[in-house]
């Protein structure tokens, strides 16, 4: 073991040596945190983006009406100091009067109402439009620091959307009529967050500087530089030479190897993302196919060695899961039926279902190749004639939308929301192509939870729904993910239980 570590260290120092001629070292010296991202950053306006990298950046540049406490999962006041439900469909907010945009103008209730009405307007073509237009009828200014939101229907997750989906913009930002410019904030962002944009070169580098006029708790580190380094190997070399201080989404093997050296610290935190198999119980691909038989679906559940996958392939805090949600999510009842790993039982169930010699099955997957292959191997081991289709995400989505997929290995990050609602609706709504159960009663149940404001009742509804999913084995739940980071040894980077990296909370040791 020692020799192995030494070898790793030698390799590591070798890479560091050659990379040392690179740009000036990052770190506490110039109070600059340099973060690397694989995904290219091309648009700074989270109202027009979706990907996770953009959420991380939006937390730096934008402030929202509410803040989510990652530990207690409660919504704390931010730009809104308080709220009051007048009735089920009317929400009044009181706003702070000391919030400034990055250009010095003071935020007014007009700006808030404008932003929400714009996003809810179909012409905005905002990525948030679908979510917001579902519940928002209209936002109106009711006083010098009050805004009233009129809802279309009961929607218990209003505060969540206010906390993480809609970023506030100055009134009139996106233009009007022929002058509509949806890219207005894409390259030069004027927002209200703890950091402001100093310079931005799309796809290359983003420089953020602490917003000294920020109304909330100011971050400790003055400058954050986000560099796009598409190759994880290059990121690794840069980290060891001090060119960057922070990288995320690090493959487990790399994180462990490099974390064993003194040049980097490996942090592994929880992640709200879960992995699961969805099975075509409704028979979209074959009305009388084997997957329509609950015994076969249970057999598949028993055949998968999820504890080993979680431990060896995902690593860190990853755990096998049993319900169709992340255990940390509100309403994710853990008392559902469990199918332990038992290949013999799986074979027996297949025989009982009338498939003693297995059957051909096509399983689609788009990420975590090793885990996909492990699933394939486990199912082959119980006699299923498995054909793994490892494709790009777009291909999988296209084929799923056409109802051509009998089973797939999917994952869901719930947008960092620790609530079963963030995973249940999209996967069990009757109109969703992700829902292959064909169970309308279940769909109604999930929908009714979203229209229930009473938290205890909502929890009970989710318990019932998750119980049905487990009993019917509509899914084969696999494991929760872990988030692996490599950071420079002098950086203190706190990890939150929701798995969302918050660079604004980083400090120097």
């Amino acid at each position, binding site marked *: 073991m020692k020799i192995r570590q030494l070898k790793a260290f030698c390799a590591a120092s070798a890479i560091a040596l050659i990379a040392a001629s690179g740009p000036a070292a990052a770190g506490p010296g110039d109070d600059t945190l340099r973060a690397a991202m694989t995904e290219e950053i091309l648009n700074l306006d989270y109202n027009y983006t979706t990907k996770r990298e953009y959420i991380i950046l939006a937390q730096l540049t934008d402030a929202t009406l509410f803040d989510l406490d990652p530990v207690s999962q409660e919504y704390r006041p931010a730009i809104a100091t308080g709220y009051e439900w007048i009735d089920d469909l009317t929400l009044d907010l009181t706003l702070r009067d000391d919030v400034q945009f990055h250009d010095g103008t003071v935020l007014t209730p007009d700006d808030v109402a404008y932003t929400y009405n714009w996003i809810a307007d179909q012409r905005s073509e905002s990525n948030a439009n679908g979510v917001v237009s579902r519940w928002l009828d209209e936002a109106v200014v009711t006083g010098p620091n009050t805004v009233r939101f009129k809802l279309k229907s009961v929607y218990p997750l209003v505060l969540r959307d206010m906390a993480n989906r809609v970023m506030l913009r100055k009134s009139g930002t996106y233009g009007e009529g022929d002058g509509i410019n949806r890219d207005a904030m894409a390259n030069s962002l004027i927002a209200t967050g703890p950091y402001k944009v100093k310079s931005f070169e799309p796809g290359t580098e983003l420089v953020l500087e602490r917003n000294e006029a920020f109304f909330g708790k100011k971050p400790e580190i003055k400058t954050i530089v986000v560099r796009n380094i598409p190759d994880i190997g290059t990121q690794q070399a840069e980290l060891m030479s001090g060119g960057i201080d922070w990288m995320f989404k690090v493959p487990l093997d*790399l994180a462990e*190897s490099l974390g064993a050296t003194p040049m980097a610290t490996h942090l592994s935190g929880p992640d709200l993302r879960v992995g699961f198999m969805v099975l075509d119980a409704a028979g979209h691909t074959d009305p009388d196919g084997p997957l329509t038989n609950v015994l076969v679906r249970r057999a598949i559940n028993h055949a998968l060695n999820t504890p080993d996958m979680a431990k060896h392939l995902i690593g860190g805090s990853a755990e096998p899961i049993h319900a169709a949600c992340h255990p940390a999510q509100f309403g994710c009842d853990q008392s559902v039926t469990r199918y332990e790993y038992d290949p013999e039982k799986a074979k027996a169930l297949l025989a009982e279902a009338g498939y003693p010699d297995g059957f051909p099955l096509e399983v689609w997957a788009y990420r975590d190749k090793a885990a996909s292959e492990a699933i394939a191997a486990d199912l082959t081991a119980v006699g299923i004639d498995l054909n793994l289709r490892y494709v790009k995400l777009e291909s999988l989505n296209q084929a799923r939308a056409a109802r051509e997929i009998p089973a797939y290995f999917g994952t869901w990050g719930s947008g960092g929301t620790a609530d079963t609602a963030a995973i249940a609706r999209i996967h069990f709504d009757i109109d969703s192509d992700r829902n292959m159960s064909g169970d309308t009663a279940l769909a109604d149940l999930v929908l009714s939870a979203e229209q229930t404001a009473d938290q205890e009742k909502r929890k009970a509804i989710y318990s019932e729904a998750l119980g049905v999913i487990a009993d019917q084995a509509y899914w084969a739940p696999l494991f929760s993910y872990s988030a692996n980071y490599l950071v420079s040894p002098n950086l203190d980077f706190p990890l939150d239980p929701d798995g969302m990296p918050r660079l604004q909370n980083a400090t120097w040791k």
Partner: protein
Amino acid sequence: MTDTDITLTTVELDRTTTLSPGQIFRRRMFGHTGFLIGAGLILIIAVVAILAPVLAPHDPFAQSLADRMLPPVWSEGGRWDHILGTDQNGRDYLSRLIYGTRVSITIGIGAATVGLIIGVTLGVIAGYFGGWIDHGISFLLTAQLALPGLLLAMALVFIIGPSIWVVIGIVGVLHWTYYLVVTRAATQRFRSLDFVAAAVAAGASPRQIIWYEIMPNLMSSIIVIFTFELGIAILAESSLSFLGVGIQPPTPSWGLMIAEGKQAMFYRPWLVILPGICLFLLVIGANLMGDGLRDITSPEGRNE
């Protein structure tokens, strides 16, 4: 298997041609070091492919997640039950490399055959008829050479679904130009020769002339090209698999194995090095054999 087939045909073919008697041919063959090395390599790899179930110590698909990424036996932490270590799913690397020969050889032969059919057909037609047909085929040739194979592969794999046959088809469709260029030029030359003119005068149809007069004379060059294309097709498959649009996991393809090992290559370089060496040996075998066959079948001996 492969090389005996080809040699047999060549020998038979050689007897029928007037250029050199079989004895001279055989003497040349055994006197050509490059050819012997190449044929030997191909023979060994072919035997490994056929005897894979006997030779492989493990099932190439059997995974053991707890034993993943074991190093080869000569490294610290290596074990004798996995001589060349294991991959990221704890599968025996030696067994996967052994079964990989099957994938590479099947695709090599299959794709080179598909390319042969397309290339020779178009080449003979272009060379025989000339004119607008020739221009049209030249245009097709240029357009094909300018289109990135990756794109074509991606689209076809998506439309048809991945299987070894689709990969054979894709690689074949991407590699017919060499056949075309050579057969077109040769056909043009033959067309002006006496024996073709005689056949035309005797009232033979173009189909008859192509089949009975021209094709037999093309055989030896086609066989030489086929041998080269074997190597090229194997490399093409490995590149496509490396980029993720060729052979799909968990089938053991060497290109795919390199792609899977790439992530960990700084710390576990054998995952990348070993399949590359296998590819190199197989392709160099095909190339040496091709070089040798060309020298042997050409009248002047070694002549590039």
